[in-house]
């Protein structure tokens, strides 16, 4: 059971990547940085290392930011100076080593509903682009259809900077994974977007285009049937109202 036959590629351009993918038949293992479950790699599939594609740039353009999916979580943390909520969520998400190792692409492949960073990220209403198909989609769409053995990888994540962003979490310790966490962003038009995390495969997103008042019921609904090994529905529903109130207060909104 030797592995010498497995091919390893490190393309430098997208066209080179496309050429490799067209040449290689069947599954490939995309290496995007900070992969940790190597045991789950298809042991016979070629390895395609994406690190030289230049996909680790974070480009700010006015009100929008394009994050290359090979950027590490720590790069993102450093790039978002002044966005304390996002930085706090990243700090809870993982210690420095993992943040230095883990790319956004790999993070998005595996993050679950208890992830504080994913919760904050979803509040931004980001979109992602996939390669090699060049397809674009909302992040929550991608999250709901993640595959164990993806045939594509995320190349970039795009987001618009909101007017305000807030994050609240409840956990057993300051850096523990949250039992419940919520992030809210409000845009220039006053539209409110709330991500409800702490459970399930990914946080649930609520868009509030009318009065913030309607958020109360929608958030409560998001935590319906949220009982799991970490908390009860009753607790999450009750505390979600507390967190909502704090989020709105910190955004200067009231219910």
């Amino acid at each position, binding site marked *: *059971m*030797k*592995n*010498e036959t*497995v*091919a*390893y590629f*490190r393309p430098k351009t997208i066209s080179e990547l496309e050429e490799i993918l067209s040449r290689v038949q069947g599954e490939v293992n995309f*290496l995007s*940085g*900070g*992969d*940790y*479950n*190597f*045991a789950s*790699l298809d*042991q016979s599939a070629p*390895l395609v*290392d994406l*690190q030289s594609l230049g996909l680790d740039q974070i480009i700010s353009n006015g009100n929008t930011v394009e994050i290359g999916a090979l950027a590490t979580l*720590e790069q993102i943390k450093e790039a978002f100076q002044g966005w304390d909520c996002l930085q706090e969520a990243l*700090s809870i998400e*993982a*210690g*420095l*080593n*993992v*943040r*230095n*190792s*883990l790319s956004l692409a790999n993070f998005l492949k595996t993050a679950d509903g208890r992830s504080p960073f994913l919760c904050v990220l979803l509040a931004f209403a980001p979109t992602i682009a996939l390669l090699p198909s060049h397809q674009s989609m909302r992040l929550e769409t991608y999250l709901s259809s993640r595959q164990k053995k993806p045939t594509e990888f995320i190349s970039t994540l795009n987001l618009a900077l909101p007017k305000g962003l807030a994050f609240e979490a*409840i*956990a*057993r*310790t*300051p*850096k*523990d*994974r949250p*039992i419940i966490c919520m992030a809210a962003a409000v845009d220039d038009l006053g539209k409110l977007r709330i991500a409800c995390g702490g459970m399930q495969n990914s946080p649930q997103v609520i868009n509030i285009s009318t009065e913030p008042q309607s958020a109360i019921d929608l958030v409560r609904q998001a935590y319906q049937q949220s009982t799991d*090994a970490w*908390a*009860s529905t009753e*607790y999450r529903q*009750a*505390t979600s109202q*507390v*967190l909502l109130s704090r989020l709105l207060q910190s955004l200067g909104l009231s219910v």
Partner: protein
Amino acid sequence: MKIQLEINRQTVEVEVAPQARLLDVLRQVGILSVKSGGCQRGECGACTVLLDGKPINSCMLLAVQAQGHAISTVEAEGEYLDQGWKQGVGLSPLQRAFIENGSIQCGYCTSAMVLAAKALLARNSDPSEAEVREALSGILCRCTAYVKPVEAVLRAAQLMREENDQAAKPLGTLKIVEADEIPETTVVGKAVPKVDASKLVQGKPAFTADFAPTGTLVAKVLRSPVAHARIKRIDATRARALPGVAAVLTWEDIPRVVYSTAGQSDPIPGPLDTFSLDNKVRFVGDRVAFVAAETEAIAQKALELIEVEYEELPAVLDSREAMKPGAPIIHDEPEYVNFADSDPTHNKAAAIRIDIGDVEQGFAEADRIYEQEYEVPKVQQAHIEPHVALSYWDADGRLVIYSSTQVPFHARRMLAPLLKLPVKRIRVIKPRIGGGFGGKQEVLIEDVVAHLTIATGKPVLYQMSREEEFIASRSRHPMRIKMRTGVKRDGTITANEMIALSDTGAYGCHALTVTGNTGQKSMALYVGDGKYRLSPNIRFYADIVYTNTPPAGAYRGYGVPQGFWPLERHMEMIARDLGLDPLSFRIKNALRSGEYQPFSTSWNEGREPRPEIVETVGLEKCVREGAQAIDWEHKYRNPEWHEVPGKPHLKRGIGVAMVMQGTAIPYLDMGGASLKLNEDGSFNLLVGATDLGTGSDTILAQMAAEILGVNTEDIIVYSSDTDFTPFDKGAYASSTTYISGTAVIKAAVEVSEKICARAVKMFAANGKVVAADEITLKEGCAIAPDGSRITLAEIALESLHHAEQEQIMAVASYVSPSSPPPFAAQFATVLVDTQTGQVQVEDLVMAVDGGVIINPATASGQIEGGMAQALGYAVCEEMRYDEHGVAREKDLVDYHIFRADEMPNLKTIFVQTYEPTHPFGAKAVAEIPMDGVAPAVGNAVLDACGAQIYANPITPEKVWESLKRTKRG
């Protein structure tokens, strides 16, 4: 494939499998400072390297991905300065700082911390404490609570800024309260660096896995997916046929020998109920088969090819169901060997019934009786180095086993019958251990590698994964405990009763002794006052039952933390209900010096009780010192302090718990030491004692050095090798300083007498008449009353080469008739969010009477690290199972242990007493910090907001529930 890696500025060409992790390849090329914590999600950080100057986890990267990047490891950080005729560059300021302030305990994560700190200081020469904590946030340490590593980084930054004129940063969180009666010493009592610190800070090969020879086979264990089943059929044919597989062993292949995995003295005080492999599985994670293969991937594949047909049986997952009529019987094997009151037909691993005084009369005399049920969870030791063992046949046909064990001598004795080898053909070597905390007081995996070496004839290495640590190693016994206490209106306790239901899991290792300690140590603290003090009324009953969950075992504190959670929560409830000051109420009823340890009159782990008087009790002083340090007077019952301005939902609270532990097991624990003089006046100290990162090798060297008049650098310590060192029962029961230390002292005294006798002759040869008892050993010399001196090197040369040749040496051993308890007062402050139930612990202050402190750096490291573990027990650590017995916690993400960047303020105070039963007045400090944090935090939460939590950990939902109940009235 062949790749080139730039490692420490050198280009290294290496042949690798494309899927090989950087971690494994670095170790393959001899970079052994990079450690594996067995984790799957990079959460432990033990494998840190710098990649282009940034700390990353080498387990999260394939080696091929690292091509083109600069890899730095601690091997390039510094080296020994003095290398004989060659001068080395010396250690780096960071390395020196880590050594000098006692940052290194087990040392398993030290290389990682040094690298993370190096990366920080390269971009920020003057970091704040918060920035240092952030830099270390990716590396989990279970020993230090990060206190000293953070101080070391700050100190190194200072050194690197060339602020060398400043004195070394003091241990800011430590205070030592001296006692008058302590004699003056020169080495004992000083914070000398650990004797193993230099090699650990350089990442030298020191741990079990570092010694695997080329060609070592990798072992893996197939584990049960079901909680309770018979193995109807097992077929390893396909696995054995897989190329690269050297052996597959099932229960059909090895001798069926019943034993207990508990690493304890003979006879094991518990039932024999375990087999290396059995035809029945008793928990999810139980052993089914062993594999040895050329690579880990092949071994893993082989596991998947083993065909097993299970006949599932009903499982018992709740301890309350275990003894009910009709419950499934977990141990029905005919080989089962009972101990004391074990009864497998009722799933009972052990039972304890202790009555001291007249408990019912005590209750009859009480004005009030308080009753409450409490619960404590199963928790994990979570040492960063997983269980690891390596075995091979040596050239003489003897089986050599390197093991990360706390009990090498017990391991040798217990393995012999399993392997059908006599003890004399087994050698167990304990190198450095990457943390143990009781988890390695177990003969847990040595049999796996030994069986596989016997089967294959080849070296075999087995290191458990982090998931295996959670599903298949040992843990703290979870218990349900009913308290019932009779009290007079003035606060005098008239009777105290604890009834425990303890869950030992699928096997009864440590079942009796852990649970015995639960009562024996905690319930001994409060004897009552007045006539009750003379004749206390105390009851402790316990049933220890089997369930189909992973076995519990030894974990630092050894049953005592389970006892102090209910006891100290209960005492708080009583004090508050009676309107008494919680400090005075406790002190009024607490054990005092000169009184009997009440349990010593009635119980002794299944042996004959031996009444014992407690000589030193520094508890009252601990309370005074601790209260002052946490500012109790200002905070307790001060409404203003309890509020947070502008945030009415936040409430502050302050709490206390008083605790006691033990020091060794009297009349049982034995340690041995051998000491010999070398030609340069240095000494070889050989001890069986097992330093598991605590620094015991160092304090043993200090005690020897004190007597022999040399520095610790002149004591070369070699420990824990069953071929070369004298017997020692191992590292448990807080016994090394006290038991092994006394053995060392005895040997040192004997050697010093021989040195003095030789010096008398040498002085006489120079015409000086001196009596042996007039000679002082000091500064490496024998000094006559007139100040003339002969060096120890001269004495050694004389005795070894010149006249009446002899080897000046001695062997000594010690077993104690006493177990002097250390005492402590633990204080905590918390901030509670009353809307969500979230608790943040802000301060922990522990004032400890551990007798005379031999080494303040190592001892305070024990207290700090212990408090951090106990903090987890207080607020976040627990192991839970679903309805099929499948674990919720399988890694260090879900099983959260505190990171560097979230620790509360910690303060340690040593209130020294001079314990007369130890030559230097020492007691123990290693386990007591586990006992008081959880109840102190629980009491602080009560103080903050009125939430009464009866089951730890104190999670947000429990606090929220309690507050909701209170509101409902």
